[in-house]
């Protein structure tokens, strides 16, 4: 691959699959998935449903999922609402401020693909995956709190399958976009790109 050799951690992605390493990976992933702290990035109407999901009826904290104000303290960015062109550079910057490993959940039709504003919205970003890579798409306008919880549970499943100590493979099922040089730190879905 082109470019300098990327920096790898001391034990990260170094080991062949084996019983101990796989169990260690599962333990690490289990602890990470049960404590996802999300950066509350409420942009529009979906933010109200995200707040409702965090409130007492559809509690997210029982899954360990907690809102944080700052991207530096968050694992997950829930993009809840319409991304506009003016906001796009800020979304990218906030994504870059998050520390690895980080995930993105695109909540609502507007963040998925522009939503109801896709046709005549000259200032609407047609999907937040034009600027950042997205892990989970939750459809709805706005998605019900149960739908958002389902998306978060799917994200937990995804995190459980992550390869922390084990080496990444080239042909891991349909995640063929993953590469060995570590440029894709978390296997990304083969989407628009």
């Amino acid at each position, binding site marked *: 691959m082109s470019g300098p050799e990327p920096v790898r951690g001391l034990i990260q992605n170094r080991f062949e699959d084996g019983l101990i390493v796989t169990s260690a990976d599962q333990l690490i992933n289990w602890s990470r998935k049960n404590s996802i702290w999300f950066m509350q990035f409420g942009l529009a109407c979906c933010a109200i449903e995200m707040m409702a999901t965090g409130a007492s009826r559809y509690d997210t904290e029982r899954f360990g999922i907690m809102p944080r104000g700052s991207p530096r303290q968050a694992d997950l960015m829930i993009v809840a609402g319409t991304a506009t*062109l003016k906001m796009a550079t800020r979304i990218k910057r906030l994504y870059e401020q998050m520390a690895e490993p980080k995930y993105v959940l695109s909540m609502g039709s507007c963040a998925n693909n522009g939503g109801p504003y896709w046709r005549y919205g000259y200032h609407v970003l047609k999907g937040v995956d034009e600027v950042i890579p997205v892990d989970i798409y939750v459809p709805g306008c706005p998605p019900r709190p149960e739908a958002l919880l389902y998306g978060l549970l799917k994200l937990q499943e995804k995190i459980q399958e992550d390869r922390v100590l084990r080496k990444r493979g080239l042909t891991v*099922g349909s995640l063929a976009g993953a590469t060995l040089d570590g440029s894709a730190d978390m296997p990304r879905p083969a989407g628009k790109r």
Partner: protein
Amino acid sequence: MDAAAIHAALVQRFGERITGASLDAGSPFAIVATDAIAEVAAFCKVDPALALDNLMCLSAVDYPKETPPRMEVVYHLFSYRHLHTFALKVQLPRESPAVPTLEGVWGVANWHEREAWDLFGILFTGHSDMRRILLPDDWEGHPLRKDWQDPEYYNGLHVKPTPQMMERALAGETIGVGPFDFTPENKHVEEP
């Protein structure tokens, strides 16, 4: 005071600078000459019989197909003392439209005029802060004009509507991964 009386008061004070009016019940308005709007507005606010101390709304409308083609700025006014409403209009040419600012009369006009500049390109002469308010500062063009065309890109981001996921899927593209495709070995199978 009803609309006819307000109009009469304006005509009595300003004469020919009130160039037109329409006083039917739905939405009465008077058309004011562009250079006189600041004086007329000040009079409307200060005169004790009119006392139109509140600018409810400032709208810009683009009429390219009327004769003559013009842009209009409509000021909807309200009086908290007398509880009556009235509207003033100015008619501007579509090329380089310009009208004096009213931010000295009603403070809220500041932001409304910035929005009219942003979306229509109407310049408010004498405005203290004439810059875009809703769109980014480096945006080109004024989108709510009737002859606006979406550009292809803005700083590398698509502006024109992109084919939606359904259309792309029908065209054969793989959209994302399937919902249960995270583990190659044990694929979840959805119960029917």
